[in-house]
């Protein structure tokens, strides 16, 4: 989630109100480190 390359997609998900989906994706990104 700290990778700036993922920020546009994160921002789009936030704008769409997809908070749960975003949180899940972030957890996957962090887990994949």
């Amino acid at each position, binding site marked *: *989630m*700290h990778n700036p390359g993922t*920020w*546009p997609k*994160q*921002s789009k998900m*936030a*704008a769409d*109100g997809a*908070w749960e989906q*975003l*949180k899940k994706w*972030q957890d996957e990104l962090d887990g994949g480190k």
Partner: protein
Amino acid sequence: MDQIIVSILMPVYNEADYLEECLESILKQDLITWELIVVDDFSTDSSWEILQYYANKDHRIRPLKNTSKGIIPALKKAFKNCVGTYVTRMDADDIMSPDKLSSMVEVLTINVEHTIAVGLVSYFSNDGISDGYRKYERWLNELIRGSNNFIDIYKECVIPSPCWMTSKYNLQRCGGFDSNRYPEDYDLAFRFYMHQCTVRGIPKVLHKWRDYPTRSSRVDPHYSDNRFLDLKLYYFLRKDWNKKPLVIWGAGKKGKYIARNLLDQKVNFTWICNNPSKIGRDIYGVVLEDSEAYIKSPNSQFIIAIASKNTSSIIQENLDVHAYIRNLDYFWFC
């Protein structure tokens, strides 16, 4: 900048009187990409209903119910659920200036990753602000203007609890809200200090801090003077005490509390004071010594617990004469 999500963490407990004004100030932010993770800490007024109303109007407002009573559990819950790249705190009875979030994000994006962005604060109240709070506001804002907050870390809380922002990564690095020590805001300031964060002050008022007789910091025992002293000693002994002989300077209320605390921890110290009527007295089994005689002795670390402005100036002159170095040889605890 609009691609960066900011998470605003906000505990709420019975703030129905002020909550709408607070939420409206958040909705007026000129930065769009934020989420407000607001955790209701078992309110018994209509705070939860107000939060539901606003959440239905704007999906960025995300209310949760606390599962374990207290501001620290509320912050833990908020932090665990947040998705922002940057994180800040807000108090439910306060007001943000419209450019608060954007100003802080701007600072963080151009500085190193361990940066804490901090804005100036302004107290307001329906009943007027006491001299003490104005003094604290002036002192704090002066530190923020100079971005040198940590120089006074042992005096008072040097980071305004609802007016800082940092990256989620950095906050995690500093332990997030895992600590259970109160006052939680001062504890976090100490952890920012311990982890060598850099403060970047923003020279404009970004936060209006409401004062009223029943606010937590005035009535909650978690925020009593003694809890502050406990915290100061906890971090001093871990961060800045270099195992040289310790000296407590001052035998007033705070000096006595510090002495008691060190005795309880079985930490040896010498106790000195300027007051001729106290020199030679035995307090808690320790005999007070004359500061004039003691200060000539090198190789000590001084904890100074003297609040009086006049006496403080005399002590500072004395320390300067002997070339003692601040925050290495001596530490102002008042």
